[in-house]
């Protein structure tokens, strides 16, 4: 199992491609919230204030707990239609 992390649109330009964080890394880094996942992937890059977060395709806030097997996505405000 692992945590799947996805970045869309300008967040992909900022952070890079989708990635998989394995459980060992998760435990070593004590990744527990969506904010932690961002910090782990983004390293020292500042998070834009308007970034949106989804866990398992539902909108959440950064304090939401992330578990092994979850899919976490970061993306800018949506601009469809």
């Amino acid at each position, binding site marked *: 199992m692992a945590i799947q992390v*996805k970045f*869309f*649109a*300008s967040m992909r*330009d900022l952070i890079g491609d989708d990635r998989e964080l394995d459980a060992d890394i998760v435990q070593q880094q004590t990744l527990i919230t969506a904010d932690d996942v961002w910090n782990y992937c983004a390293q020292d890059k500042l998070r834009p204030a308007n970034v949106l977060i*989804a866990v398992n*395709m539902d*909108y959440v806030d950064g304090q939401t707990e992330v578990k092994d097997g979850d899919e976490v*996505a970061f*993306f*800018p*405000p*949506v*601009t*469809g*239609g």
Partner: protein
Amino acid sequence: MSVIILAQPFDPWQTLAEYQQKMPHLDGKYGATAVFLGTMRDFNEGNNVSQMFLEHYSGMTEKHLEKICTQATEDYALLETLVIHRVGEINPNDPIVLVAVWSSHRKEAFEACREIMEDLKSRAPFWKKEQLNSGEDRWVEKNTKGY
């Protein structure tokens, strides 16, 4: 209720006519059909735009569009809904989004069509990247307010 994400151009009016013909439960029951069609402009924020690329989050986009349509169906007692949204390369004048709703009366049809469209604009994960005539490209940062 149908939600369709399309990677190719489509004819909205032909699609709409064909869709309605396949909905026998509407027969004799619908008094109002409201349709919104969004098409691509060749300008935005003071610049000429030659082409656009529409990205989406496959799975989450469909999930949220279905939620939006289910909620509108409950709130407005709709008989049927159809949402079609383009992804990929889009050119000026191409249809981008079609929202169609069928109901017994016009009030519900007008209001539900508007609400689905505004909810789509604020919650469905799509992103537009514009190619400008100057050769530059840029992500669209936010949608304009619809109300």
